[in-house]
C-alpha cells in the first residue's frame, strides 16, 4: 500500500495558480490572488513542451525556456505574454482559433493596474448582471481592437496581472467603456 503522496512546493504553487486562473476566468472582472506576484506562477502552471509561446518581456524568457515551451511569433503562439503594453498593435496578430476549434485561440497575459484607470462595464457568462472594473495601464484603443478581433466563438482570452492579483476577461465577455 502506497503512502499518500504529498504535494511538492511547485505542485502547490501550480495548483493555487490554476485555481486563481480558473476562478478568475469563470468570474470575469473579479480579482483573484495568484500564489506569488508576477507571471511566473502562470508560466509554470500552464506551459510545457506542447506550447508555442510569445513573450514581449525579455525578463520572462528564462522562466518560459525552463518549461521547455517553444518560442514562436505572436501570430502562431497559443500563449502570449505581452507584459506592460504601450500600443494595441500586438492584439491585431494574436491567433483567434477557428469556428471548428475555437479553443485554439490564444491565452493572453497582460500587465495592468487593477482598480485604477478607465472604468469598464462587463457583461456575459460568469457575471451576475453586470460588473464594473477599473483597468489602468492599457494602451489607447485596446478594447476597440479586441472587439474588432473577436468573432465569437473565435477569439482570445485575456488575463490582467497586477502584482499577485489577476483579473480575467474571456472572449465571451462584452466590454463597454465609459
Amino acid at each position, binding site marked *: 500500500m502506497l503512502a499518500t503522496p504529498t*504535494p511538492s512546493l511547485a505542485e502547490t504553487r501550480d*495548483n493555487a495558480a490554476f485555481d486563481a486562473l480558473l476562478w478568475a476566468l469563470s468570474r470575469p472582472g473579479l480579482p483573484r490572488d495568484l500564489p506569488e506576484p508576477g507571471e511566473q506562477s502562470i508560466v509554470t502552471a500552464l506551459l510545457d513542451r506542447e506550447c508555442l509561446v510569445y513573450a514581449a518581456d525579455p525578463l520572462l524568457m528564462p522562466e518560459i525556456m525552463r518549461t521547455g515551451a517553444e518560442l514562436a511569433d505572436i501570430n502562431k503562439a497559443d500563449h502570449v505574454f505581452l507584459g506592460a503594453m504601450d500600443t494595441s498593435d500586438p492584439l491585431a496578430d494574436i491567433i483567434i482559433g477557428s469556428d*471548428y476549434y475555437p479553443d485554439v485561440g490564444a491565452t493572453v497575459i497582460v500587465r495592468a493596474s487593477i482598480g485604477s484607470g478607465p472604468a469598464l462595464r462587463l457583461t456575459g457568462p460568469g457575471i451576475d448582471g453586470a460588473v464594473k472594473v477599473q483597468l489602468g495601464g492599457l494602451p489607447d484603443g485596446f478594447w476597440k481592437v479586441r472587439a474588432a478581433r473577436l468573432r*465569437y466563438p473565435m477569439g482570445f482570452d485575456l488575463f490582467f496581472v497586477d502584482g499577485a492579483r489577476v483579473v480575467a476577461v474571456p472572449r465571451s465577455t462584452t466590454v463597454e467603456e465609459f
Partner: protein
Amino acid sequence: MSLSTLTKPWEAMSYGFLDGSAKRELRRKMLKSVAVPGCQTPYASREVPMARGWGTGGLQVSLTLVNPQTRVKVIDQGADDSVNAASIRRFISRVAGTPTTMDTLEADLIQSRHRIPEEILREDQVLVLQVPNPEPLRPVQPNMSIARQMHADADYGRMWLQLYEQIVRSGRVMQGASYPSLVHGRHVMTPSPIPRWDVPKLHMAKHLTILSAGREKRIFAVPPYTKVEPLVFSDVPYKVEEHGHLTCTRSGATGFFMNEIPQDDGSSAFEVSDSEWGVKTIRARDGEGESRGETWYKDGEMSE
C-alpha cells in the same frame, strides 16, 4: 543550468496520480472550455486506473483541481454509497490526501455521475459531471467531422426536427436524460445524462460546472451565471419529470427527484434519488438536528 534544476526528487507517485504534463494540458483545456461555454474542447485523456466509461473524464478533472484542503464528494446517480462513487472517492483521497464528505454543503468539489444534488450549490463549489457521450448531434449526425462543422455553423435545425418527430410519434418529447440545451445562446451541449429535472439547475447557477468525457476525450464547461436553455418549441413548454407529488418511502421527503423501485405486487415504491438529502431528511425527522440547505426545487416546483 545544472542537472538539479532540470530534475525533481524521486517520488513513488505524483501528487494526485496524474503527472505534471497531464495536469498542465488539462488546465489549458479547462480554461478554454470555460472561455467558450458549451463548446467541446478536445483533450488527451490520460490513462487512469479505471476503465474508460466509468468516470475517467471526471476523475482527471477532479485530480487536477484538488489540493489537500479540497473536500471531495462523489455521487453516482444521486447516491454517495454506490460502488462507483465509493471507489472514486476513496481513490481521490488516497492519491491526493483530500478530506471527503457526503454532505453537499460541506463539499468544495463534487464529482457526479448523472445527477445534480438537490441543495443549491454555492459560488465556491465546483461540480464535475462525468459524460459518456459529449456530442448532442450524434443521434442526428454520426459523422463527428460533419457534427463539428454543424457546431461551427450553429446548424442545429436537426435537433429540433428530432424533438418534433418525437412529439409527432409519441405525443410528447421522449428525450429523458441528456436533454440537449443551448448554452450562452451559441453552442448546443448535452448536459450529460442528468434527468430533465436537473437541467434547470444549470441555468444561471452560482457554481462552475465542468463536464468531461474521458473515453471520448472532450471537455466542456458551464461557467456560473450562464444561460442554459433546453431546446423547446414555443408552444410545447419544457417539462421536467412529474415527481413533484411523489413521497419517499424511507425518508418522507416530498417534491424531489425519485428512484422508482418496482414491488412484487406490480406497484412501485419511490425513494429520493439524492441519497444524502434523504439521510438529512431522516435526521431532521428523528430530531437529530436540521442540516438541510436551500433546495432548487420547493414543493416540487423549480424556484425562480
